[in-house]
């Protein structure tokens, strides 16, 4: 028998590549005499040497898997030490870490032990006991196992703050190649069920206050970037569908870290972090800037320019829309200007009501004029490269600012970009 600490080593090591460590988005007031509160802002308790925030105890319940996905360390054919926590152990560590203020809560996932239903049943025991017996009100994020019965999923859902189901590979072909035992529909089915559950419980809660909350912090998923040849375009299209069709709160992107030497996998020496970062920026554009995946990329232009942020990249291919007059353009259009973010666009609109906006005002409002100046006129005057030549503007933006590749790798690659850590998004 392994002792708890040996298990912890194995089962936290295996869980760490999952990026969605954010614990925000849920407030759970403490019940009387209970333990803990899920705080809205999200609290980091420590930072590892890679600069990532530790907020949740992120572990696998088990790494003994009946499946054999090529990209995964836990695949059944891999020769590695195996371990499985008992519910008692997980409950004990969670409660004691929480009381010592090491963590905000638990992020639990697992390999598939025996069967999806068996694994989910174990999950249910853990979350039910944490909430009902231990009175634990901290944050719980659970990674549901595709292929389990809906009844179990629904029971689990009313005890946790957030549920996620990892899609991992963006396409069916990818799955076929690397995870032949998984089917896209098995993954998408529980996502649909969770989405329906959220709506159904919300309706019922309007009638009966006693109806419990069903995953109050919503559902999320994670996609692996760089394990297959899928383009940015396909990935972004999928994200768009997930936001619109499945009501997801977040899609996380995780640069593929080579953890196995399977011949089916690409031979890479370092995880594609810059690409991951570009996808986070583009994801942001989908959610807050009114962009659509098909505007940003296409079959002919399937990948982002690694040297430019996606908005600049897009703008340079759409020069016919620019320059925009800053004192006239509406909010939606302002958002499309490189260097103007949500905040500064709002500020421009509201101060325009009092007086014309000038060059210095834009600076004070936080507009990145180095980029923006090429795409706007200020009261008729244009401060950028006058020919509006896209090649020249591109090199001015890349070369003219200290935003070379080297700099980016230090400042912009916060490694995941969640956990409340800013993604280094250049607006």
């Amino acid at each position, binding site marked *: 028998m392994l002792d708890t600490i040996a298990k912890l080593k194995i089962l936290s090591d295996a869980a760490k590549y999952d990026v969605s460590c954010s614990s925000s988005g849920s407030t759970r007031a403490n019940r009387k005499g209970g333990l803990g509160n899920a705080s809205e802002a999200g609290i980091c308790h420590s930072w590892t*040497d890679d600069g990532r925030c530790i*907020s949740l105890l992120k572990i696998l319940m088990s790494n003994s898997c009946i499946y054999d996905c090529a990209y995964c360390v836990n695949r059944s054919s891999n020769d590695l030490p195996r371990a499985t926590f008992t519910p008692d152990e997980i409950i004990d560590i969670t409660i004691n870490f929480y009381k010592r203020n090491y963590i905000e809560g638990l992020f639990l996932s697992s390999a598939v032990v025996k069967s999806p239903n068996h694994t989910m049943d174990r999950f249910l025991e853990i979350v039910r006991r944490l909430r009902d017996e231990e009175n634990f009100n901290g944050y719980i994020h659970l990674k549901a196992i595709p292929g389990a019965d809906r009844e179990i999923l629904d029971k689990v859902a009313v005890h946790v703050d957030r549920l996620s189901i990892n899609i991992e590979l963006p396409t069916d072909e990818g799955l076929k190649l690397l995870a032949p035992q998984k089917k896209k529909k098995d993954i998408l089915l529980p996502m649909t069920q969770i989405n329906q559950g959220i709506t159904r419980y919300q309706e019922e809660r309007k009638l009966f206050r006693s109806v419990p909350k069903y995953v109050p912090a919503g559902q999320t998923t994670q996609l692996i970037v760089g394990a297959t040849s899928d383009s940015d375009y396909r990935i972004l299209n999928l994200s768009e569908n997930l936001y619109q069709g499945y009501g997801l709160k977040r899609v996380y992107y995780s640069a593929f870290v080579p953890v196995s030497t399977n011949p089916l996998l690409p031979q890479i020496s370092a995880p594609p972090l810059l690409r991951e970062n570009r996808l986070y920026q583009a994801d942001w554009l989908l959610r807050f800037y009114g962009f659509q995946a098909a505007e940003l990329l296409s079959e002919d232009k399937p990948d982002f320019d690694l040297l430019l942020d996606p908005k600049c990249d897009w703008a340079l291919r759409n020069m016919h829309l620019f320059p925009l007059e800053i004192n006239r353009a509406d909010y939606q259009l302002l958002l499309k200007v490189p260097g103007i973010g949500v905040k500064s666009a709002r500020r421009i609109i509201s101060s325009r009501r009092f007086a014309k906006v000038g060059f210095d005002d834009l600076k004070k409002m936080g507009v990145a004029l180095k980029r923006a100046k090429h795409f706007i006129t200020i009261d008729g005057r244009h401060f950028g490269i006058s020919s509006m030549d896209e090649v020249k503007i591109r090199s001015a933006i890349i070369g003219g600012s200290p935003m070379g590749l080297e700099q980016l790798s230090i400042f912009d690659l916060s490694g995941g970009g969640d956990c409340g*850590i800013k993604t280094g998004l250049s607006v």
Partner: protein
Amino acid sequence: MESKLAYLYDGSFEGLLTAIYHVYYDKVDPVAILPIWEEGSNFLYTYKRVETDVNKWERVYNAVEEKISHYSLKRIYNVYLSEMEDSGIIILRYLREGFRIGSGTDDYQTNPAVRDLEEIYHKVRLEVHRFLGLARFKRLQNGIFYSQVEPDHNVVALLAPHFVDRIPAERWIIHDIKRGVAVFYDTREWTIRSIEKPRDVVLYEDEEDYQDMWREYYRSANIESRRNKRQQRAYMPVRYWKNLVEKGD
């Protein structure tokens, strides 16, 4: 050369408000408002002591609430707790503007007096937020959860409400060993008292097991190929490390 006037108060928030009352009453323009232990630290200054007086500080307290805002009171309290040398005079300058402008004072971000206050206020709030995550508790033999901290600013009182919410059913202490003050919570209410550094703390029998587990967890959560110490230090400054189980000795 004209000598510069510095007011001295007893170090309490009430004392500071009393000093501000005197500034108004004396119709003078001091260069500093300092706690009493700073007396004599600058030989260009002429020092003037004020006695804390409830009738005086209450006038100021109420005036801030009525003429500016309750939020403004909270801000000056936080800035007072910063214990930064110029915090007293910055509060005075801010209040002068505040009494002139009224309830909209804090929106007036281009005003230098408002901005100076804002800057310190942010420093204090940042540290409070950091310690909500970085305060570490260990369980003592008598069952109490004990946390030892060394913050830059005097923030333990600002931490208390969060932990009352978080661990309501346990007795706990958050002890600022730099200042010798601590928050005590007895499962019903919290109080703040000054205490010495405990001589010998005896830990609960399984305490070290959980510390070992946490260190193990901390080590294995790191992804070596993404190593980024610079970012780690930006978020978790090295000066806080010595009281962290996973970083200290």
